[in-house]
């Protein structure tokens, strides 16, 4: 099969998009490297405090007019954007693969998920409606209407460079707010391209701003008095100790979607072939760099024969995964995003061995498809005999490492799962409705999968999360996003 064309053909220095203008940054410039080829594909600025301030000012300046723009008119611009996203679907997908490393099927899935959020936000004329009660007291009517707040900050992670800002931005602007997006400086091309399309769609200057960078930009958002709220996706230490805490200190709304250690409970009555296919995607898809990736497989029951045969099949299937450049259509697992992330995975493999777990598939030994540098690549690893409380079994690795545990029954599997501090996307594989309901009722997890390995809610459901996986109240996507980006204004009216 073919290796698809790379859409980024020349190295350019990316610009910020502020107030409808593409502006060169005065900040330090760093390379963006394709992790599959190790070639530099772009240069990205680490923008300054003055530049984030300018973007917030642009958003603030655009807010009054944008707020007065009717929801239908705002929706029409989102429809324009949706059309452009469809027209540029393949280019956007290939950019994701080129800058992140994920397989083309995964990138296309990410593109689709992003577009779905734009589609849902197009319904803002009805999504944003308030409600009214007549005669709450004699001759007095009362109504509640959602109103926009101003400028919001959107901080994106490296693992889904295209989709994750789209969990927030369409809803923020649909409801009459303006935004400043900070893409991950590791993968900034996707959001730059998205901004180009937003500009083409016709959003007025200052409604949709983007500033590349790192901590300075994040701190600039957190400290800025005109930023009303922030959505963030990233690690738990940053989300909890920096974003959530400082938004609390500065009175900002916050959605902080953080780390995970997802458990997949496998019942003896599961549909084995389908379950194993789902496991490959869940544990090794996106090279494990996904907050909804399964990390621990808990195999239920005391039937040693089932356990051994199941594990053997899982290992066999995982050992056949084709590793290489995601633009090669036959590849099923791409590289990790950078060398440090690979080293982190290798460290955890060492930790697992030191903790006494058995490495039944060693990801350090793998065959690479194509003539590529192996700097960021690692194969799928599978450990058995993993203790739930061990570092391997409890800490987020963010790489293609499967830890297999056993539980004597479903209650024990749920207990092991719930003892972990994270609660993002646990799942169960079973043919029993009773077991499935018992699991979904008792497991503490924002998103729950029943025979689904990637428990990613579609755009009209909130992307939930619990425990150390989420900090905030409302969530991105759907109706909850509409609520997050609006304040309820209640009017009580009487006429004399």
């Amino acid at each position, binding site marked *: *099969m*073919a290796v698809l064309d790379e859409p980024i053909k020349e190295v350019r220095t990316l610009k910020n998009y502020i107030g409808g203008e593409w502006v060169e940054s005065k900040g330090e410039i760093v390379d963006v490297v394709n992790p599959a080829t190790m070639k530099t594909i772009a240069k990205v600025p680490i923008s300054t405090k003055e530049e984030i301030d300018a973007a917030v000012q642009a958003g603030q300046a655009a807010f009054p007019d944008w707020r007065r723009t009717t929801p239908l008119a705002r929706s029409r611009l989102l429809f324009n954007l949706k059309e452009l996203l469809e027209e540029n*679907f393949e280019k956007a997908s290939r950019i994701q693969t080129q800058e992140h490393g994920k*397989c*083309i*099927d*995964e990138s*296309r*899935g*990410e593109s*689709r*998920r992003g577009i779905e959020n734009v589609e849902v936000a197009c319904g803002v004329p009805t999504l944003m409606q308030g409600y009214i009660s007549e005669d709450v007291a004699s001759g007095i009517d009362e109504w509640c209407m959602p109103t926009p707040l101003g400028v919001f900050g959107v901080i994106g992670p490296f693992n889904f460079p295209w989709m994750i800002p789209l969990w927030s931005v369409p809803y923020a602007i649909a409801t009459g707010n303006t935004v400043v997006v900070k893409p991950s400086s590791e993968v900034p091309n996707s959001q730059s391209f998205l901004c180009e399309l937003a500009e083409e769609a016709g959003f007025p200057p200052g409604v949709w701003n983007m500033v590349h960078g790192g901590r300075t930009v994040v701190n600039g958002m957190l400290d800025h008095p005109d930023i009303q709220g922030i959505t963030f996706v990233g690690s738990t230490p940053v989300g909890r100790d920096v974003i959530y805490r400082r938004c609390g200190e500065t009175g900002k709304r916050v959605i902080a979607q953080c780390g995970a250690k997802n458990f997949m409970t496998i019942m003896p009555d599961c549909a084995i*072939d*389908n379950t194993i*296919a*789902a496991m*490959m*995607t869940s544990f090794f*898809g*996106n090279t494990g760099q*996904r907050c909804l990736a399964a990390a621990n497989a808990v195999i239920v029951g005391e039937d040693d024969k089932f356990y051994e045969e199941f594990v053997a099949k899982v290992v066999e299937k995982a050992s056949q995964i*084709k590793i290489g450049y995601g633009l090669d*259509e*036959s*590849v*099923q*697992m791409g590289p990790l995003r950078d060398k440090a992330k690979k080293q982190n995975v290798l460290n955890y493999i060492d930790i697992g061995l030191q903790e006494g777990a058995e490495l039944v598939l060693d990801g350090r030994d793998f065959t690479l498809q194509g003539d590529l540098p192996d700097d960021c690549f690692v194969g799928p690893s599978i450990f058995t005999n993993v203790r739930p409380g061990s570092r391997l079994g409890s800490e987020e690795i963010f790489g293609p490492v499967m830890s297999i545990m056993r539980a004597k029954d479903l209650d024990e599997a749920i207990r092991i799962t719930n003892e972990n501090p994270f609660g993002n996307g646990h799942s169960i594989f079973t043919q029993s409705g009773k077991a499935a309901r018992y699991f979904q009722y008792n497991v503490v997890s924002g998103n729950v999968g029943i025979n*689904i*390995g*990637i428990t*990613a809610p579609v755009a009209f459901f909130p992307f939930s999360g619990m425990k150390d996986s989420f900090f905030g109240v409302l969530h991105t996507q759907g109706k909850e996003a509409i609520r997050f980006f609006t304040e309820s204004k209640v009017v009580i009216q009487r006429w004399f």
Partner: protein
Amino acid sequence: MTLHTASEGISFAREMEMATAKFYEELARRFPEHAETFGAYAAANKKYVSDVERAYYGVITDAIEGCYAFKGLEPDDYVIDVELGAEVDLAAAVAQAVANEEAMLRYYTDAAEQSSGTMHDVPRAFRAVARKRAQRISDLKAMAAR
């Protein structure tokens, strides 16, 4: 190379459709008395590509196993021959077309069956194209018999 990913499966279908579309365009040129039929086949092939791609691009998502869509489809099982000999007559050309169509029918049928566990819209599109292919095979055989 065995096909496993959804992207590979879609690309393989596209390549077969486009290659046989060219084949039918050539048949239309060489056999003007059947130009309308062969031209229509070529146009339909391109529509099948867009039908299948629309289904795929519409449903591809990280919730399904796109990189593991097929247990394993062997391209060698679906070989088509689109090279027309210089002196080929209508009967031989139609026989070649039937053989190609049968290979493609097998491909769509197998691809639909293998991917039905992970997707819905794509195998449905595969099956729809397979049904039209079966009809085309019947029509081509009738043409040869006339």
